[in-house]
């Protein structure tokens, strides 16, 4: 998986209250004809050099937001600023922004070279300048030997590279990517993830990517925003969103999660004790903010944070009992679906440390599962 090595100064830009955002989206709303809110009062601050992802299911408004950044869609309300300059009403052909389309949108009547040169020609650069930039771009995406081909003579992966080269050729301040890997098959997609991140690091352009694939967003982004129904639910680094989801929706959207409903019975300074119908004993979790007694809460636990045990813990806290119903062997890990005696199904992920044909657990085994007080989060939304 590609992991971004980053300049620490960039990494912390969003935590620094004095840092000037590169792109500011202020209360942007898009209402389509018929009154549907595609994007509903979205505000975001994105910093220079970030690889930012908008993540959400189809129809959540992420593509509309991206198209508003490109100028292809008008904002009903709100403002968009790049380096302090208001570009809300600027037509697409004047914005210092370029976009890579999901369908790639390569011009079918032009060669690869001409496609990449198109944007540069609009800037009226000299012929020599254009040629050198085109070859630089084609080299960047390893497509130099295909310069004279036409788009219909290229494979999907090659077209994707040409589209990327074309959108980067003008050295935009901001590059928008609409599902850039959506049309590639799985193997190629994983390889291209690496490349895209590498290219972004090399050119240093701020990238905003739209994707519905949470794995893609997690592995490639410096930060990501989870969207649903035109609103942003949470913004954060991949690990923040994964480990500290703000709501049940975000917890369920990113990765697998087990949710236990309950009520707060005791609130201590940094811990809460929760009574749940889903577990035989009480649940004790760390929680930074104090919660009132009786507050309905949801405990979110990732499958890999659960532990398989031979017997219930002595303190009768943070455990659950069940029977193995299904086993998913994935090679490196196995996923067990455990049916509890309280009619719930809990997912547990176990790393396959030893090589063996059958895992330590098999169907219909009775198991005890436990977890630590810092293994999950307590959600109130």
């Amino acid at each position, binding site marked *: 998986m590609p992991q971004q090595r980053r300049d620490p100064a960039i990494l912390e830009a969003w935590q620094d209250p004095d840092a000037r955002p590169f792109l500011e989206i202020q209360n942007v709303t898009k209402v389509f004809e018929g009154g549907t809110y595609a994007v509903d009062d979205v505000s975001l601050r994105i910093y220079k050099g970030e690889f930012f992802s908008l993540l959400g299911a189809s129809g959540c408004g992420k593509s509309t937001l991206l198209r508003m950044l490109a100028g292809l869609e008008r904002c009903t309300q709100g403002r968009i600023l790049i380096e302090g300059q208001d570009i809300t009403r600027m037509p*697409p052909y004047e914005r210092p922004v*370029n*976009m890579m389309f*999901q369908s790639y*949108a390569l011009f079918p009547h032009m060669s690869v070279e001409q496609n990449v040169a*198109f944007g540069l020609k609009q800037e009226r650069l000299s012929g020599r300048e254009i040629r050198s930039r085109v070859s630089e771009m084609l080299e960047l995406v390893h497509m130099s030997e295909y310069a004279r081909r036409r788009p219909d003579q290229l494979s999907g992966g090659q077209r994707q590279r040409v589209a990327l080269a074309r959108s980067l050729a*003008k050295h935009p301040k901001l590059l928008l990517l609409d599902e850039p890997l959506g049309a590639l098959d799985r193997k190629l997609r994983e390889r291209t993830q690496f490349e895209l991140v590498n290219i972004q690091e090399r050119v240093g352009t701020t990238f905003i990517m739209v994707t519905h694939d949470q794995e893609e967003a997690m592995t490639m982004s410096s930060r990501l925003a989870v969207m649903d129904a035109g609103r942003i639910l949470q913004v954060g680094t991949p690990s923040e969103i994964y480990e500290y989801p703000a709501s049940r929706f975000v917890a369920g959207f990113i990765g697998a999660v087990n949710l236990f409903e309950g009520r707060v019975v005791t609130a201590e300074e940094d811990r809460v004790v929760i009574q749940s119908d889903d577990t035989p004993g009480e649940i004790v979790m760390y929680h930074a903010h104090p919660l009132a007694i009786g507050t309905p809460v949801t405990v979110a636990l990732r499958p890999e944070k659960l532990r398989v045990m031979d017997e219930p813990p002595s303190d009768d806290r943070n455990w659950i009992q069940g029977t193995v119903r299904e086993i998913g062997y994935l090679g490196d890990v196995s996923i067990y679906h455990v049916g509890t005696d309280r009619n719930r199904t809990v997912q547990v992920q176990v790393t396959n440390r030893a090589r063996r044909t059958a895992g330590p657990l098999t169907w219909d085994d009775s198991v005890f599962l436990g977890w630590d007080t810092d293994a999950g989060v307590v959600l109130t939304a």
Partner: protein
Amino acid sequence: MTGRRSFWLFTALAFGYAFLYLPIVTLIVYSFNDSRLVTVWGGFSTRWYAELFRNEQILSALWLSVRIAAMTATLAVILGTLAALTLVRFTHFRTRMLFAGMVAAPLVMPEVILGLSALLMFVTLEQAIGWPPGRGMTTITIAHVTFTSAFVAVIVQSRLSQLDVNLEEAAMDLGARPWKVFFVIILPIISPALIAGWLLGFTLSMDDLVIASFVSGPGATTLPMVVYSSVRLGVSPQVNALATLIVVVVATGVIIAGWLLHRQARRAGR
């Protein structure tokens, strides 16, 4: 069983083709007839072709028809493309349905009605504003443009609706202004449809007898009108020769137009 069926299929096919093409084949064969009598075979000869090319009346009619057809096709491509663009790109304007219907109406309207209404309009216009002065080449061209642009609009519309909107957006995103997008991106991509539309418009205009008869005036006699009147006076074998030439030209035009459309459909399908 299959043998029988294929025999019947073959016979039906042969009858079908004979029904469609036997008259034309007869015409072509008799254009090489040496005899002055159209229905009596008098040996092979190309003398009627030679005579045809000495016939001033037919040649000037041919030249007039070609000029009208070229003008018609060009204007029809411009108007038809504009109509098609409006229909495909502007999906939300109030009278869109009405406009779409009116663009397509000439396709199904009887030619007699088109010709008569065009004639009435020209007469009224001349009385009201003095233009067009009389009837002739101009009026025939205008009348031809009205019905051929409908055909062009249909052809271009089908091509445009297959065009990825993202292509235009990408061009704008890369810094091209809307007019430039139209000329550098849209026009080259739909050019096969434009050429096909032009050829079809040219052919339709060359073929037309009914509308031209209504709206032409003294001194403006198109080729089909000459053919028709000479047939009524008694068929000269020259007309056979002329008809053969027209069939060849029209067939070539239609085949090229069809080939272009086919190629573009195959490209779009990929």
